[in-house]
């Protein structure tokens, strides 16, 4: 038992190390920079752990792909604009089937936006940010201990699915300090699944559509679909084993609140009045769980740090309207949640009367 005060971003680094990561590349960007800094400090003391502060996020994203192909469990960490720059490489990693982990500590966008303020506006970017079709796997913890735990799960899932996995965080979660005991978090580690480069093969790791022998398949729909379906099937099958979520609070209430990441923590005072569904695996969307749980409730409210990105997904999955409480411009607070609920006429009376602590 070793209790300690730990920051969300630092917990990500510790989780990565625990998962067996030996390569980090990144570029400084708020509010994710503590991960880069912690990685550099760790690398200085552990020569087997390699660290690169790259020239930009494009280089970082491509470097972790190269490192993974070479045999290292690898990862990067970034935020909004940097995550946008990484999108092409994420598509490339999907195409190659490379296990690696992208950490996105969300801030308020678009563009440079509000660099130090929390947002959750990358939900759809993690799913559709790169061009073409691919099957994303994304996790979003909501505590420091979970930052550690789901970083390990992200690495495990990347290995099993042989695809890039995204770990979402946000400016509040990344900078949150909590007392944790990491020894109580026991996640078995999935070993490397991809045979490293120069193992005696003559493989072609190609972003271009090619046949197994390396010849271009750039005008062969059947071959494209065969490869696409194979990758999709593997990823969906693996993701099923990582279907993490939380269902709780007042399950007998008439209204179900859906919230994730730091928003679930902010919404905690709603507990007596609402049921809670918190997706931890953001993608693939927890369709079966939502379809099972949601019909028990008269109303659904999605509270999130974007203008309805996840709400629109829930509506699509359930064929049903949901109420929206968007927390925009970094105003991610209980006060903003109250105002949002009041605006749609769903603010419980005793919450309206409570004073802000």
């Amino acid at each position, binding site marked *: 038992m070793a209790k300690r005060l730990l920051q969300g971003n630092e917990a990500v680094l510790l989780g990565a190390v625990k998962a067996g990561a*030996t*390569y980090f*590349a990144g570029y400084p960007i708020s509010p994710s920079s503590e991960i880069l800094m912690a990685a*550099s400090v760790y*690398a*200085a*003391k*552990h*020569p087997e752990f*390699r*660290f*690169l*502060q*790259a*020239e*930009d996020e*494009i*280089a*970082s994203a*491509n*470097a*972790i*792909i*190269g*490192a993974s*192909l*070479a*045999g*290292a469990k*690898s990862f990067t960490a970034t935020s909004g604009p940097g995550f946008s720059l990484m999108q*092409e*490489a994420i598509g*490339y990693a999907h195409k190659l089937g490379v296990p690696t982990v992208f950490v996105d500590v969300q801030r308020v966008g678009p563009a440079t936006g509000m660099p130090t303020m929390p947002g959750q506006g990358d939900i759809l970017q993690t799913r559709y940010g790169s061009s073409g079709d691919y099957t994303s796997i994304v996790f979003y913890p909501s505590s420091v201990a979970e930052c550690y735990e789901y970083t390990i799960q992200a690495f495990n899932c990347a290995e099993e699915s042989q695809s890039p996995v995204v770990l979402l965080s946000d400016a509040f979660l990344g900078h949150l300090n909590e007392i944790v005991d990491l020894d109580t978090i026991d996640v078995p580690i999935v070993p490397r699944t991809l045979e*490293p*480069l*120069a*193992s*005696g*093969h*003559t*493989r*072609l*790791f*190609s*972003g*271009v559509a*090619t046949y197994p*022998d*390396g*010849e*271009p398949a750039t005008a062969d729909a059947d071959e494209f679909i065969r490869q696409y379906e194979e990758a999709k099937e593997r990823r969906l099958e693996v993701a099923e084993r990582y279907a993490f979520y939380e269902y709780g609070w007042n399950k007998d209430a008439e209204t179900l609140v859906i919230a994730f990441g730091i928003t679930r923590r902010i919404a905690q005072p709603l507990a007596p009045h609402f049921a809670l569904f918190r997706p931890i695996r953001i993608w693939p969307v927890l369709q079966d769980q939502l379809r099972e749980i949601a019909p028990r409730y008269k109303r659904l409210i999605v509270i999130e740090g974007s203008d309805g990105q996840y709400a629109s997904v829930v509506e699509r999955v359930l064929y049903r309207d949901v109420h929206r409480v968007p927390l925009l411009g970094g105003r991610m607070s209980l006060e903003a949640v109250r105002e949002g609920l009041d605006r749609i006429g769903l603010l419980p009376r005793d919450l309206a009367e409570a004073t802000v602590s």
Partner: protein
Amino acid sequence: MSYKDKLKTELFPTIWCPGCGIGLIMTQLAMVMDDLGLDKTNTVIVTGIGCTGRMGAYMQFDSVYTLHGRTLPVAEAIKTVRPELNVIVVSGDGDLTSIGGNHLLHAIRRNPSITVLCNNNEIYGLTGGQTGPTTPVGTKTVSSPEGATFSPVNLQGLVNTNGNAFYAKTTVYHQGQMRRAIKEAIEWPGFAFVDITSQCIENNGRRIGFPSANEMLNYYKKEYRQAPPGSTQLAYHQLGIVKGKPAEAEPVAVGAGSKNGSGEA
């Protein structure tokens, strides 16, 4: 062993146009690999996008066909994780110096021990013959009907901003010199860049007045001259190798534990 063992000859003929210079580079690279004992257990090829990017598919090695412009971060990371491997980047001038220009700038600065072979045909060939960062001023292309406006990128000057780096200029006509340059580049302890002038007859040469690839090769024969021995700077159309001072330690940026190298300056 023969250099042919380095090639997937069963995939021949290649996708490259008749008269293309890339095959001449691949053959010399394969010969050097044979001379130096490079094989699929100790060497990785990294290629970019463009006609040159296809080379990895034709060679008996594990090969990474990267996104456009991203060979260098991929190659550098492979070398970092597996320092014992020979990492050879083969790509075109557009891929390496335009879309990949920022990575080139910083790879030169960090000085990883990788070899870069740049097929410099002064044009975007695969996409149909648009102006590239290496196209000479005045050259008419499909995207510069009045002639290219801007000066070509100074690759020698760029590479030599690092005092430890290796820069070689050669052409596909000068096969012996190209082979020496490739060999010395692979053996160089640090970043080595081989700038290989090469003909693209289909999407450049014919448009600028060459009737055939043979005429382009003869032009290289006539125009390019060996630099005097010991040259530290190659003049326009001079062939040669300019070496910096070999780095004494592993470059600092690829391993934070390292204490020496040019990266700390």
